[in-house]
C-alpha cells in the first residue's frame, strides 16, 4: 500500500472566506431502520453519537452522524480507522437489515471558514444560509451549482462541504470563484 491520496492534495484559496480541502475523512454510508433500537445502538457504538434529528448532524465522542435521508446516515470517523470501525459496525448490526459501506474515498471534503463563509456557499446552493435559517449543527443535502453536495456548519462558523471525489476539482474552483476577494455581498456576517 502507498499513502492514500485525496482528490486535491490539500488545496487552499483565500478570499472573502477561506476554502481548503480537508484531506481524507473517514466516512461510512449507513442505511437501516432508524426505529430499531439495535440500529441506534450500533451507530452510537461507532461514533459515540445519538441518532441525528432530521436535517442535523450529531457529534459524538468518536465521530459524528449526519442525517442523509429517512433511512440513511453518513457516519464520520477518523480515516485511518474506517475499516476497523466498519467491521465493528457490521458486527454490531448483526441481525439488523442494514447496509454499511466505506465511502471515504468516494468523496472530496472542503472547509469554508471566515466572514464570507455563508455568502460563499449562498452563491452556489439554493439554500437559505442566513444565520436565522442555517444554524450550527444543521446539515443539508442540496446542489452546489451543477453538482450534488452536502454541507454542515459547526459551532465556530466553519462549513464542511462534501461532494463526490470526481468533481472535487470543480467544487474547489467553484467555491474559490465564489470566495473571490472582491465579491463580498455584504449581507451575512460571520
Amino acid at each position, binding site marked *: 500500500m502507498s499513502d492514500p491520496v485525496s482528490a486535491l492534495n490539500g488545496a487552499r484559496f483565500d478570499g472573502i472566506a477561506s476554502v481548503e480541502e480537508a484531506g481524507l475523512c473517514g466516512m461510512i454510508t449507513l442505511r437501516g431502520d432508524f426505529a430499531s433500537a439495535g440500529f441506534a445502538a450500533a451507530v452510537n457504538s461507532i461514533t459515540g453519537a445519538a441518532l441525528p434529528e432530521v436535517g442535523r448532524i450529531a457529534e459524538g465522542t468518536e465521530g459524528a452522524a449526519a442525517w442523509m435521508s429517512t433511512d440513511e446516515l453518513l457516519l464520520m470517523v477518523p480515516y485511518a480507522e474506517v475499516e476497523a470501525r466498519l467491521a465493528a459496525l457490521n458486527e454490531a448490526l448483526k441481525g439488523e437489515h442494514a447496509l454499511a459501506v466505506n465511502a471515504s474515498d468516494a468523496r472530496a471534503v472542503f472547509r469554508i471558514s471566515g466572514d464570507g463563509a455563508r*455568502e460563499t456557499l449562498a452563491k452556489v446552493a439554493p439554500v437559505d444560509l442566513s444565520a436565522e435559517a442555517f444554524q450550527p449543527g444543521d446539515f443539508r443535502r442540496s446542489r452546489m451549482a451543477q453538482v450534488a453536495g452536502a454541507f454542515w456548519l459547526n459551532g465556530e462558523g466553519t462549513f464542511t462541504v462534501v461532494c463526490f471525489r470526481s468533481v472535487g476539482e470543480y467544487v474547489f474552483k467553484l467555491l474559490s470563484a465564489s470566495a473571490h476577494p472582491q465579491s463580498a455581498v455584504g449581507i451575512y456576517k460571520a
Partner: protein
Amino acid sequence: MSTRLAKQGRLIDRNKQIEFTFNGKRMTGYAGDTLASALLANDQMMVGRSFKYHRPRGLVAAGSEEPNALMQLGSGDRYEPNQRATTTELFSGLSAKSQNHWPNLEFDVLAINNKLGRFLTAGFYYKMFMYPRAAWKHVYEPIIRASAGLGKAPDKETKDADTYEHFYFFADVVVVGGGVAGLQAAKAAAASGAKVLVLEQNAYWGGRAPVDGGTIDGEAPEAWIEKTRAELAAMDNVTLRDRCMASGVYDHGYVLGYERLTDHAPGQGGPRHRLWRIRAKQIVTATGAIERPLSFAGNDVPGVMLAASMRDYVVNWGVTPGRKVVVATNNDDAYRTALVLHEAGCDVVRILDARNNGGGDLMEEARQKGIRVECGRAIAKVSGGKRVKKVAICAQNGTGGAQEEIEADAVAMSGGWSPVVHLWSHCGGKLNWDDAQAHFRPDAARPPLGDNGKGFVVAAGSADGEMALGPVLVNASAAGSKAAEDAGFPAKTVAAAAGVDSVEAPMEAVWLMPAQADIGLRMKSWLDYQNDVKVSDVQLAAREGYESVEHTKRYTTLGMATDQGKLSNINGLAILADSLNSEIPQVGTTTFRPPYHPISMGVIGGEARGDIFQPVRKTPMYEWNDTNGADWEPVGHWRRPFAYVNKGESVHDAVNREVKNTRENLGLLDASTLGKLVVKGPDAGRFLDMMYTNMMSTLKIGKCRYGLMCSENGFLMDDGVVARIDEDTWLCHTTTGGAESIHGHMEEWLQTEWWDWKVYVANVTEQFAQIAVVGPNARKVLEKLNTAAGGGMDLSKEALPFMEWRDGKIGGYDARAYRISFSGELSYEIAVPASQGLAFWNAIMEAGKEFGVMPYGTETLHILRAEKGFIMIGDETDGTVIPQDLNLQWALSKKKEDYLGKRAHLRSHMADPDRWKLVGLETVDGSVLPDGAYALGEGINANGQKNVIGRVTSTYFSATLDRGIAMGLVKHGPDRMGEVITFPGTDGKTYEAKIVDPVFYDKDGEKQNV
C-alpha cells in the same frame, strides 16, 4: 441647442469632471451623469438611427424606457452592443458609439429607406419576400441578414473579460422599487418584523419624487427619502440594494434581481453583475409609472422628449435639451416641466393643452409666470430633421389644418402615465382599465397566485395607479402592511407619511394628435420608435384583418424592440381598438414577460464559464492520463482517454498500436467510471431478478454474471457484470453513463412499487479506482507484483476462474479482482480504493514494462469488444432496441414469472419477425463502413423515398484483422448470412458489405479462458 445649465443637477458633482468619447469625439461630463445626460450636456441631440427607416433619433426618455439611445460600449473584451445611454452611469474613459448607420451617424446610406417608407409598411416582410420562391435563399435572406440587428455582435475572437455570479436569497417581503412608495411600503412591512429586501434599479433612492416636488411630512421629498432610507438601513431585518433591478417575477414567489456591481467602475475587480435568485413570500411592486408619448407627426425628431424626462434632465443632471421649448400635454403633470424649465431660464414658448378646459393649479401657476397656455390645441407636426426646428400648431379636434408655425428647439410631450405593471403581470396578475386615468392598473382581486393558492404580489403607489403623492404614500403603506401580514406576520398598521402636492385637473385620453389627423400626418406619427411602427401601420394591420393584439404586435413589430413596448404599447392598442371600433379593455394588452429590462447574458450563466463552465469528472488517474498523451473524450461529465497518443503518432495510429498490443502483450484500461452499485438485503435477490432480464438470485457467491436491464417498455437500458458478494449482497456494474441513472432506477422501484421489500442500495462507484489488466501477459504482471510484495491473492486459472471474483491483496494493495473480459483476452478488472488508484496504476505500469504494458483508451475498448461481437449500450441500442434484436434471447430468463420488460416483449410489435436484427458486416473491399449508414432495400415507400432494410450501429478499423469491421441491425439479418447489401454514404460513395457472424475474432472464446 441642448446644454448644461448653470444651476440645478441634484445628482451630479460639478467638482468631478469625467472624460469620455462618443463616436471617437472627446466629451466631458460630471460624476453622477448618465451617458444620456452627458451627451445632452455636449449638445449631442442625435444619438442613433431607427431600425427600419434609419431616421435620426434623439433621447426621448431618461430611464429604462428609452427606445432610441442604444449604444455600443467599450471595445475588445469589454465591447457590448445595445446598451441604453439612459441607464449607463458615466465613468472616466467610457467610449460609446451610436448604432445602426453606415458610414456614420450624420450621413447614413440606408436612410433612403425613409423615402421608401410607403413601401415598407406593416407586414412588409411577409408581403415582399414571398415570390419568387427561389429568391428567398439567394437574394432576400442575405440582404435581410446584412441589414438586421441593431448593434454589431462582439467579435468572435473576443472573450468577456468580466466575471459574474449568482446569489440565493430568501425574504419574507421583497419590495421592488426604492422610490417613495417603495420606501414607505418597506417601512410598513419591516415594522411587523418581516425580513424585507428592497431593490432599487438606480444608484440613488427616491425615484421621481425629488423631481416632481410637493412635500412629505412637511419637508421636501429629498429630506424624507434620506431619513427613511437611513431608518431602514439601520434595521436588522431590512436589506437595501441599489443598482439592483428586479427583472422578473416567477412562479411561487421567485424573483430575479439584476445587480450591476462594476458597470459604473469597470475593471475594479470582482464580479461585474450578480443575479439575485430570490424566493419571497410576498412581493410589493413599487415600480412607479412611465409617461406615454403623444402621437403627432414628427414626434420622433431629436428634441422631442417625454415631459417628465425633460424635467429629470433639468433637475437631476442640470441639462436641458433646448432653450425654446413647446410643451404638449393632456394632463397637469407636464406643467411641472414647463415650470422647471422656466425656473431654469429656458423659454417655454407655448403650452398646448389638448383639453378644452385645460388643467388645475399648475396651469394657473404657469400663467402667473407668464407662460402662454393654449387649451384645446395640439401639435400638428414637428419639423426639423436632425433636431427640432419648427412646431406647427392646430386644434386638437380636427384633421390638422389651420396651422400656426412657431420656432422651437425642443418639445416636451405628455400623453398621461401608465403604471409599470410588468412585474405584477409576469406571473399572471390581471389588470383593470381605468378610464379616468386612461391606463391599465393592477386588479388587486386577481393577483398572481403562489403555492398556497393565495396572491403573492401587491402593487404599491403609482404602480398601483395612484398618481398623486398623498394617495401614493397611503397606498404604499397599506401595501407594505398587507404583504407582511400575508407573509405570516401579525398585522401592524403604520401611519403613512403625509404627502402634499398640487391639486390636479383630470387628464383626458389623447391617442392621436390632432384627433382626426390626416393620413399624411399619421404616416409620420410614431408609436414604436425603435422598430419604426407608426399609427398608420397599426391601422393598416387592423384593415387587413388583424384583430388580436398579439397578432398585430407580431405583424407590425409594435412593442417587439428591446424596450418591449414600454412607451408604445398602450398608445398602439388604443389605435388598434379605435380602428376595430372596439374598447381598449376588450382589445387587452399583450403578455408581459420577463425580463423587465434586458439583463446580461453573462449574469444568466453566472459563475459557469471557463473551467467551471461545466463540471468535469476526473478519475484518480486523470492527471497521469493527461500527461501521458490522453486524447480526451467526454463521456457524460467524465473525461476518458480516447487513446494515448505518442509523439509523432496520429490518433488512428495510436489506436491501432493499442489494439495490437493488448491482443499480443498487455493493455491497461482506466475503467474507474463504470458504475458500481451495492444491493443488499433479504429481498435483494428477488429484487435483482426483477431488475435484470436474467436470473441473479441463483448466482453463487464468488461468481459473476453478465446481465441485461430493460425498461418496463421492454427496451434495453443498461448492461453489466453482477457479482454475488455474500448471502444477501450483490455488486452490480453499470455502464459509465448508467451509474447515477440505474441507481435512481433501482431506488424508484424500491421506493414506489416494492416498498415492503427489504433491500438497500448504495452507489459506491467513486469509492474505487478500477483498472482492467488485459492481454496474454495479464496474469504474469499481477503475479510479479504479488511476488514483489511477498505474496497476495492466488490469480491462477484454478483459484480465480473466468467469471469469478476474489477479495485479497495484489502487490500489497487491498483489491477486489474480477475475472471478466470485455475484450476476449485474459483479463482482470481490479478495484482498489480511489485514494490508492494512481499508485496501483503506476505499480502495474512499472512491473509491466517487461511484458510490453501500454495503456489503452475507449476507442481500443470499443474495437476489442466489436471484434468479439459484444454489444455496447448506446451503440447497438438507442432506446428502441430489445434484447431479441441483438440475439440475446439467452439472457432472457424463462424461469422467472416476471421482470421489468417481460410483459412488454409479448406485445405484437416486439415479437414481429420483421424486426431488424444484429449481424456482423464486412465490407467487400475491406474499407470501413460509415457510422450510422442505412442499407438500401427494394422499392420506395409511400413518401417516394428508397426503402431501407438496416443500419450500421458500430464500425471500426480492426488492426487485428487489418480490415474494416462493423455491426448493424438488418431486416431478417441472421437468415441472410453471406448476402451483400449496399450502404450509400453521405460522401457520395456506395459501400458494399457482406452479412456475417458478428463475432470476428476468437469465435470459441478460448483466449479469455486461459
